[in-house]
């Protein structure tokens, strides 16, 4: 149990997609760092009191953060002290799902919550989310069970604690999303954009489209997309895929021909002391904002392409291969 502080800055930046450089809005991990797509992963432990501090907002509009799946989020800011995070209204109209940071507001705003349950969650913009989430203002929160780092603890290297079938050897988080580059260009240059025209033309995992997904972490050509999605495991290892959909479309993540066991949905483990309700799948459909934890144990070596089974999302500008796809390499 600790007090954990994570600092974020909202900035404008650009992401590199195959064949196109696209403006985006993202969370940066420091005053001097570039914004990232997805935002920096916030990794904490059950029992932690988590302070997510939004220091500044480079946009010409308000920004906030909501934490779907977290109970009781509180807000601290210079003027108002501590209060429960709540929707914001102006002249009777809601202007934000939660307390926001104005461009001109004095000082930072901090969101505070107790990490009560392990799991994989999103944090994302709660202000004009139909624009800001699409523009890139989302990231992942990983909450570990308490014994996660202690080799002698039964919860060691588990996603949800002992008895939940979530002990893993290799873990990979895959954040799915869809990008309408025309919308990005319009909003970045301050032009009007009708959300009813939303029509994505790129599909990403961890902010990159295939084949960039299989390039390494911190690839210098993609400074704002530091997270690769290639996965390496050995035969018989327990590979935990933590799949979460930050996009506006539903996506069906296909496990490359392998069979996985779904061990949790939206941060709730399916196996408890009372009943084991986990189940096996070859692919799973995720609605917007949903997450699933899937355990895959490869029985043989090979190359497997984890991909969106919505095959129209495996293209970059209509050309296969591309889009929401990455490779799992299983060594003997």
């Amino acid at each position: 149990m600790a007090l954990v502080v994570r600092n974020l800055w909202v900035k404008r930046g650009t992401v590199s997609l195959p064949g196109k450089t696209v403006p985006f809005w993202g969370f940066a991990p420091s005053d001097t760092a570039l914004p990232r797509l997805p935002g920096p992963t916030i990794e904490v432990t059950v029992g932690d009191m988590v302070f997510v501090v939004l220091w500044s907002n480079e946009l010409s509009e308000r920004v906030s953060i909501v934490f779907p799946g977290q109970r009781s989020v509180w807000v601290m800011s210079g003027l108002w002290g501590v209060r429960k995070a709540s929707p914001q209204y102006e002249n009777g109209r809601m202007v934000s799902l939660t307390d926001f940071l104005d461009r001109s507001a004095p000082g930072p705003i901090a969101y505070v919550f107790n990490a009560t349950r392990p799991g994989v969650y999103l944090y994302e913009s709660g202000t004009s989310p139909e624009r800001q989430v699409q523009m890139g203002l989302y990231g992942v929160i990983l909450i570990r069970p308490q014994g996660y780092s202690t080799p002698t603890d039964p919860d060691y290297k588990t996603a949800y604690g002992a008895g939940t079938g979530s002990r893993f050897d290799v873990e990979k988080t895959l954040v799915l999303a869809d990008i309408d580059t025309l919308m990005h260009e319009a909003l970045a240059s301050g032009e009007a954009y009708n959300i009813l025209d939303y029509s994505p033309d790129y599909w990403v995992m961890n902010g990159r489209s295939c084949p960039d997904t299989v390039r390494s972490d911190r690839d210098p050509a993609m400074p704002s997309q530091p997270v690769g999605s290639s996965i390496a495991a050995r035969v018989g290892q327990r590979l935990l895929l933590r799949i979460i959909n930050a996009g506006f479309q539903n996506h069906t993540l296909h496990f490359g021909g392998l069979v996985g066991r779904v061990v949790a949905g939206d941060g709730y483990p399916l196996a408890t002391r009372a009943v084991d309700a986990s189940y096996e799948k070859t692919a799973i459909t995720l609605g917007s904002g949903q997450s699933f934890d899937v355990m895959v144990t490869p029985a043989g070596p090979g190359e497997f392409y984890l991909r969106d089974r919505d095959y129209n999302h495996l293209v970059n500008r209509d050309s296969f291969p591309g889009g929401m796809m990455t490779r799992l390499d299983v060594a003997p």
Partner: protein
Amino acid sequence: MATVNLWAKDGYLSTPDGNSVYFWGFSAEPGGPAQLPGPHIVAREGEAITVNLVNTLESEPVSISSSGQTNVTAGGRPVGPQYGPGGELVSFVDHAEPGGGTVSYSFTPTHPGTFLYESGTYPHKQVPMGLYGALIVRPSDYDPAIPAYKTAYGFGTDTEFDREYVLITGEIDPGLHQAVEQGWPYRISKFKPRYWTLNGRCAPDTMFHDDVPYLPCQPYGAMVMGVPGERILMRYIGAGIENHPLHPHGQHARVVAQDGRLLRNGGTDCSFKRFTVLVGAGQTYDLMYQWSGLGYTLRSPIPTTLPNRRNMGIGEAGWTMWSGSPYLGVKGDIPVGVVSFNEFGEYYFMLHSHEEPQITNWGEFPGGMMTMIGIYPSLNPRVGTLGMG
């Protein structure tokens, strides 16, 4: 060892509104037509099977992959991704080259169940074009002569069935199909389906028998038939690239398996009842449908209020599938001028996509992803065996 031979070919689909749509499909005969969906492959748990593919398409390689089948080999080696000269991914598994190339896959199914087989090559094009089909794996102890062993997932799994039906969902964008036919650029970003299919057919063709001569490329009907109390196994397969909420009327159904895996952990039954199942792209669902509606027994016909006859209509105005009588097996009077397609006093219930724009043919209701469940007073036991509609 079982052997299945498939040929990848092109052909033309027929839609109820009179359209003819170019497509690619698998055929079971070198001289036979391409078909949508491809031939049902029926394998057996624990028995090796070989699938030989001949690719007669001239333009590009074709492959077959089936999610959930592991340890598939081609030429003695595990199948793996195939790359083009620039290192770009072409196929998820070994493929057959165009113009008559061949590939031979061998595997031994480790689990019974319902699976999809589909092309693993340029799947954004080849799967919407029609290169898909059903793979049914019988449990190792399957014996249709003994009720306790006529199961989807083996003795003692509570999956005994009296009749079984495969229902494969798909979508057709005729503009993209025409682009492939004419060699125009294939722009999947313009994907806008106009037809939604069950077993490759749009309603009302879904209700025709298997192998009707006027649908040579669409041999599988999608009509579900049974008698009261029977356990009807419906194997849903999502072969398209969209999700479809399938909804049977008459009775709720129990989902007993997904993706070819029984919903059971040890002694815990994890099956669940739903009246709508979202058939996700590339996924399968086994449902047990058992009609016992309204307390019906042979001795106790249903005391029901006569439905509004306008609501019993189907197709053209003046057509109905209503028997004219609320009693199963009893026919009654039909108003003059109304044509009844009800022959034995059977009950009909719709089974359809609950995304209602999909129960049209190019916008015209009724059509698309819709069929009927027929509950008969009695029925030939051969109805509802695979390959017979």
